[in-house]
């Protein structure tokens, strides 16, 4: 009897040692974001000296011949002694298709100047103006090092670099984490700084410059982004873990989209009321002008709950507000249905945002003539919007911790706003954007 008890105690101790290695990541506040840098891999399951690999390919396709993206990702994690680990990641991103250029549709054919070489492209009457020269390849590389300082402190250090034909970015940062209450609580803080350079063909257009008579500055423009994050992760009980983050992001420098235009709409009484305003027989389009700084604040809350039957509920909410007048709410819900050797995970996401203070679907001819406009954008991504994602993920567990998974999702964006005047009222100023997201991944 005594021997049996002793053996049971030894088994529990072994289990605890093994699982203690895993609980660290459970408490880790992830710091991936757009930069794709994970402060901690999904699971510290590796023995020292071993590697884990994750490969995935994303296919993203919008309807109406808009953007198509193919994005393969390769991630490798090397485990060292004392729970230290190194993650290396490469992302290759190929974009093709057409993207809204910001101008309003018209009952006349519209001619736009390309950003490169002064060539032009036409948009048929009543069609949404899309910039069809959208073609880009992006390569992003990152490395992240995670190591404990002692039983209660842990840090990560990350570097990032990416390059595309008109944009480069380099960044570095780190996080530090303090475990408390028997590792049931973790406090996490981090800082990441990015230095980005914008270099479209022929340079960036001056703010509110007219498209036809543009004098580009033939030089690069840059922006700096500083991100800070403060988070608390808390084990609630044996089945529940919760995370609360506050983050702020300060961007400064050139924050325009160098390809975005605004139409100037004729508000003078007459037959062309609500049509394109013309000077010298040509429609007038202006390049957008955003402020040169932006401060964003986000609160992010996430909870995971394991049901008795092995299923997992994952819910999160994010509130964001910034000094451009935008605020947004994001709700995300996943239910992981455990099927033993495989799983199915339905996913639902709802997003809504209010417009930026300087967003306007077009510029009136009176505003244009007055000449006192300083900031304006018609970029639909800064307008009143809501978006819905519904999807399903399937995963198959293989031997030796390998996994194949795939997901398919449908994404719908809907914009609303001022419907214009006169001739413009007959046009669809806020077409929906629909996309399919398809991903295949393999972990080994």
């Amino acid at each position: 009897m005594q021997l049996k008890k002793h053996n049971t105690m030894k088994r529990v101790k072994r289990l605890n040692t093994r699982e203690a290695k895993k609980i660290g990541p459970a408490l880790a506040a992830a710091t991936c974001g757009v930069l794709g840098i994970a402060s901690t891999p999904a699971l510290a399951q590796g023995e020292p000296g071993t590697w884990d690999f994750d490969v995935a390919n994303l296919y993203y396709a919008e309807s109406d011949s808009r953007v198509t993206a193919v994005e393969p990702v390769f991630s490798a994690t090397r485990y060292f002694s004392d729970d230290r680990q190194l993650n290396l990641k490469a992302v290759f991103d190929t974009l093709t298709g057409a993207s809204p250029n910001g101008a309003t549709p018209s009952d006349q054919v519209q001619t736009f100047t390309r950003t490169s070489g002064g060539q032009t492209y036409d948009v048929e009457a009543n069609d949404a103006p899309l910039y069809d020269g959208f073609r880009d390849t992006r390569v992003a590389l990152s490395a992240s090092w995670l190591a404990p300082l002692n039983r209660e402190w842990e840090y990560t250090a990350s570097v990032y670099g990416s390059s595309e034909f008109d944009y480069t970015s380099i960044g570095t940062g780190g996080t530090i984490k303090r475990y408390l209450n028997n590792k049931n609580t973790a406090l996490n803080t981090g800082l990441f700084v990015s230095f980005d350079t914008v270099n479209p063909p022929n340079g960036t257009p001056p703010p509110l410059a007219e498209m036809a008579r543009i004098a580009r500055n033939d030089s690069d423009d840059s922006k700096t982004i500083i991100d800070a994050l403060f988070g608390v992760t808390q084990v609630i009980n044996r089945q529940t873990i919760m995370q609360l983050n506050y983050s702020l992001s300060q961007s400064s420098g050139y924050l325009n989209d160098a390809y975005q235009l605004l139409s100037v709409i004729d508000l003078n009484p007459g037959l062309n009321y609500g049509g394109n305003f013309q000077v010298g027989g040509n429609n007038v389009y202006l390049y957008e002008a955003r402020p040169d700084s932006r401060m964003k604040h986000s609160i992010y809350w996430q909870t995971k709950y394991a049901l008795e039957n092995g299923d997992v509920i994952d819910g999160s909410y994010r509130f964001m507000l910034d000094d451009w007048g935008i605020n947004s709410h994001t709700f995300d819900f996943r239910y992981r249905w455990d099927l033993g050797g495989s799983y199915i995970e339905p996913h639902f996401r709802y997003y809504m945002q209010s417009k930026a203070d300087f967003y306007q679907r077009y510029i009136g001819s009176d505003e244009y003539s007055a000449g006192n406009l300083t900031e304006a954008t018609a970029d639909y991504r800064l307008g009143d919007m809501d978006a819905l994602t519904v999807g399903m993920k399937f995963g198959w567990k293989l031997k030796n911790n390998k996994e194949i998974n795939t997901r398919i999702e449908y994404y719908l964006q809907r914009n609303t706003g001022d419907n214009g005047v006169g001739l413009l009222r007959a046009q669809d100023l806020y077409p929906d954007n629909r996309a399919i997201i398809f991903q295949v991944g393999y972990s080994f």
Partner: protein
Amino acid sequence: MKTIPVFVMALLISACSDLGVKPWDRDILAREEMQLNHDPIEASLDDHIYFSKEASSGGRGFGGGGCGCN
């Protein structure tokens, strides 16, 4: 004024000290699917899509630059 965040943090930490589990009760929390960011590849691809298409980013992690898509 500066004492308020410190006070709130202290309150949170002391409230949290009553929560949690003993080390030998971590079996469920240790499961891969119970990690808060259990699929960082998928999360980073999603963050990239939504960063390109919406005005918000970050929250779960750093939401900074790194892409000319917005």
